[in-house]
């Protein structure tokens, strides 16, 4: 008897739709990596979503805005599982996320199965997400990984005079994509890529790669990030190597620059490119950094927002602006919301962002260099800015398509006018 009582109580618990949503609120689901190499950056993403919502008073379009966090571990399996939980169990209307490249591609495919919901990319940067067979309800307000690399190649060739490089980059979609952006630009500027090394994401032993790096190069391009970057630098230091470094976008992010230990000092003088410069003098950026620093106590945040944080912040801004635009009306399969997201330019701390026909942003890329901040820490200083970088890196869509997708062997440097 008691057993059947328990059984019926369990059954009752199942019947209760836990996503029971009040009519006057809109729920955001934050899909973010809180495990693995990017856990620190992911936590900053959550902070920035909170910041954006606080600034809006947790209200948009006359409705209350609530949010749920779904942690992933940067594998596409988990991302899709958590997305499904957000939509089916928690009843969210809009997903903000994911964080990493392969998750983004998985979410593009998942988005097609929920056409009446909206997915706004967090900070994942795989080119394919909005380039190959994009989903109509997937929006990306950050530049993709290839765009982030644009401009750096020309900079190192023309300003630094580094013409021969070897590259070490993470062996997964973001690694290829970010490398492609750098390489296309670098090769067009006449540079030569001597050798390419690919290291698995999450590896801790880089000894083999470091030992086989060629000596006769001007610089080494490093396209790894998070804890991988710190591990690499540690071992690079221990091996006594002193070649110039060129950083991929996530190489000299706040997560690496604020790490403990001296290994990161190898980065001093390293040029990198990315969608932000923490000392960008523009007013929008300065105001945002101030708001970020005031919103959280110093030991619970980075000195200035990380790349991951800014991505989630802008995605939340986009969601709020679109909800305001449609007056909180998510009816008709969120058609009005989708229209508002894709057609309106968005003012962000990084300048105005506009989406193209694939719902992919075009915007500015910043070239920065790592310097000693005089207090024992490191910081990025703003060097140059490349505006209006498009998804196709200034090529026509046909040319860009003909070049092929990012992979270990693409782009072909010689075909772009460079060597190697």
């Amino acid at each position: 008897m008691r057993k059947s009582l328990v059984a019926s109580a369990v059954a009752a618990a199942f019947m209760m739709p836990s996503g029971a949503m009040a009519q006057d609120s809109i729920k955001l689901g934050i899909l973010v990596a809180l495990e693995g190499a990017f856990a620190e950056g992911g936590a900053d993403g959550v902070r920035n979503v909170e910041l954006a919502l606080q600034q809006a008073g947790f209200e948009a379009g006359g409705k209350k805005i609530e949010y749920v966090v779904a942690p992933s571990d940067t594998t596409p399996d988990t991302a899709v599982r958590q997305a499904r939980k957000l939509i089916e169990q928690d009843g969210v209307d809009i997903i903000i996320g994911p964080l990493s490249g392969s998750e983004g591609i998985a979410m593009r495919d998942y988005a097609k199965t929920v056409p009446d919901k909206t997915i706004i990319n967090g900070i994942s940067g795989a080119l394919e997400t909005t380039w190959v067979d994009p989903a109509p309800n997937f929006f990306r307000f950050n530049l993709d990984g290839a765009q982030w690399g644009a401009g750096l190649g020309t900079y190192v060739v023309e300003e630094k005079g580094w013409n021969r490089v070897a590259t070490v980059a993470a062996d997964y979609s973001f690694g290829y994509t970010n490398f492609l952006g750098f390489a296309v630009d670098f090769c067009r500027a006449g540079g030569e890529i001597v050798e390419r090394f690919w290291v698995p994401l999450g590896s801790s032993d880089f000894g083999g790669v470091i030992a086989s790096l060629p000596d006769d190069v001007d610089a080494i391009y490093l396209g790894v990030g998070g804890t991988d970057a710190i591990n690499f630098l540690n071992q690079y230091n221990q091996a006594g190597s002193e070649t110039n470094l060129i950083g991929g976008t996530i190489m000299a992010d706040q997560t690496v620059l604020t790490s403990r230990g001296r290994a990161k000092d190898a980065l001093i003088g390293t040029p990198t490119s990315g969608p932000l410069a923490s000392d960008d003098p523009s007013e929008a950026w300065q105001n945002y950094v101030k708001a970020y620093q005031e919103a959280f106590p110093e030991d619970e945040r980075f000195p200035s927002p990380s790349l991951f944080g800014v991505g989630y912040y802008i995605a939340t801004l986009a969601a709020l602006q679109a909800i305001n635009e449609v007056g909180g009306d998510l009816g008709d399969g969120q058609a009005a919301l989708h229209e508002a997201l894709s057609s309106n330019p968005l003012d962000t701390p990084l300048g105005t962002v506009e989406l193209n026909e694939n719902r992919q942003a075009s915007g500015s890329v910043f070239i920065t260099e790592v310097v000693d901040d005089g207090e024992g820490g490191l910081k990025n200083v703003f060097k140059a800015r490349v505006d209006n970088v498009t998804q196709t890196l200034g090529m026509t869509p046909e040319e860009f398509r003909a070049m092929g997708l990012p992979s270990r062997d693409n782009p072909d440097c010689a075909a772009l006018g460079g060597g190697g």
Partner: protein
Amino acid sequence: MALAEPPLGRTTAPTRPAPQKVWVERIPPIWWVLGLFLLTLPAYANDFILFQVFGWTFILGMIALSLMFLAGYGGMVSLIQMSVAAMAGYMVAIFGTSGIAAISMDLPWWLYIPIAILIAAIFGTIVGALAVRTEGIYTIMITLAIAAAFFYFTRQNYTIFNGYTGFNLVVPPQLFGIDWRQPVPFYYLTLGWAAISYGVVIYVSRAPFGLALQGIRDNPRRMAALGFNVTAHRVAAYTFASVIAALAGILLVWQNAQIAPGTAGIPAVIDILVIAVIGGIGRPIGPFVGALIYVLLRTFSPDVLLTFGLSGERFKLLIGLGFLALVFFSPDGVLGLWDRWRARQARRGDPLTGEKGE
């Protein structure tokens, strides 16, 4: 719960009552209740509970069941079962249809499913043949090493396994006009295969092969002296367990609609062991109990933390604490807790009638 399978490790010689019951009567009522509950679940659970919670539970339960078979009946703790499942999943993606048209061969389902099971079974058998030459901790080490090698191989190999990205858009075939990826059909599909696997494991455990295997577990020397081929029995146990894991792997790739190296990464491999230990490797129901607990923790622990005003990003802590508490209070898993509770109830007698025991 008077489970329908013989408890392990105890040599019970039940003195059955003289009149032989019909088989229907021999099934304890709890099984009827459980069966009815699971069969009618779609009437009262939402799609998420069906597809995500129970679908995933049955799949993980099947993979852990294959481990339970090896560990419980064969005394071999193998960490390769998740990799075998992933191998089957990969084969479905490679021989069947996926979003990676350059690699996938688009064979019909009646061809690629047997191929996937066959290849996964061969893979499991080869690993088994290597592993049976070791005992105890060394079996764990060698299978873990092969699992790690499998993970890194799939991540680095682009010509067959498509590297880090893996395969996307792998969906079940539309059989009998049903979309098997819809929550209710998928729920019954996984329930059905889980029940079949469970039944087959029970059957095999009582068949001569299973009894010989348990004999080998308890005393390999004596079994060898009796003329049993110890190594052959152990390798065959791996083959049998691999088929169950392969079935689960196919269901898993259909549920996720994609497969990538992370599917059989080291954390996933360890999770299967955790599931089996939580549930208890004494009996075949254990892995399913463990899988349900694991899935519930995995799915809802961030919400639980947030309810108590804690930061949701520490959800792994809750899973870890739960696991530690369980291992501390009951080294033989949830089933062990249950058995002890039953024993205490039996000693204390019925609170209403005062009758002792059953």
